[in-house]
């Protein structure tokens, strides 16, 4: 019997509360929490599922809770004995020398790339090129930056709901 089979099933006629759900680690699970568990296990059917999904669209805390349960389910599915190499990787990641090498390398690389981009832009701006070309170049750089920021913002906003980031193999 799986863990999900042991969870209490929500009744056929849900009484959805309009207030914010109150989740607590120490209190017995409330109805919203039971619904979140059932939804994560894909046990909600029909109208009950539709109603819950409508609430998910507006309720950030509830969506977060569902994501946490989905994350747990994925982790449980992937739980297995670590390989010897996993332990060595973990040891290496904790090693101050390894951390220093990685971080220093990353920051030097990022800093160098930003410097090169900055110098190139400054050269372009002070060059003899026509102002139309300069404005076009500036617009292209700005557009790329804005596009990247939009993608980054979307990723950061949805990252918490992505249950598949910690799957290792």
């Amino acid at each position, binding site marked *: 019997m799986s863990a999900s089979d042991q969870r209490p099933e929500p009744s056929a006629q849900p009484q959805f509360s309009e207030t914010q759900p109150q989740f607590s680690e120490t209190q017995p699970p409330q109805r919203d929490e039971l619904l979140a568990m059932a939804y994560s296990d*894909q046990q909600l059917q029909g109208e009950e599922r539709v109603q819950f999904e409508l609430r998910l669209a507006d309720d950030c805390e509830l969506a977060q809770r569902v994501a946490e349960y*989905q994350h747990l389910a*994925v982790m449980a*599915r*992937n739980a297995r004995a670590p390989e010897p*190499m996993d332990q060595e*990787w973990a040891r290496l990641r904790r090693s101050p020398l390894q951390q220093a090498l990685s971080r220093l390398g*990353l920051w030097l*690389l990022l800093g160098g790339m930003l410097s090169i981009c900055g110098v190139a832009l400054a050269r372009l701006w002070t060059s003899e090129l026509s102002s139309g070309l300069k404005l076009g170049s500036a617009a292209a750089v700005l557009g790329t930056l804005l596009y990247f920021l939009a993608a980054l913002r979307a990723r950061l906003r949805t990252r918490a709901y992505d*249950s*598949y*980031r910690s*799957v*290792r*193999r």
Partner: protein
Amino acid sequence: MILTTTDHVPGREVQAVLGLVKGSTVRGAHAGEDMQAWFKNLVGGELEEYTALLAGAREQALDRLVADARAKGADAVVGLCFSSCEITAGAAEFLAYGTAVRLTPQKSS
């Protein structure tokens, strides 16, 4: 939900075939992971970043397949297959597909 790559489930009979079910996803590694993998590729060994990328894609595709099967009222997916291809550099597309069925206990003859 029983997931099996075989066409039959021992001890059960297929009561109804509910049709094709599938789940797919395309997941990408971020630039930092790509860079780490590139350096590891120079010296050999497992590219953990891409192992994890593929594993995450596989699990997500499988979850979507299960959701699809549940929506059809199935209690098993038989003939389960995985398919993977590279849709863009540094990303993994994973497709899981199979046949959703409803099972009953096998009648003893």
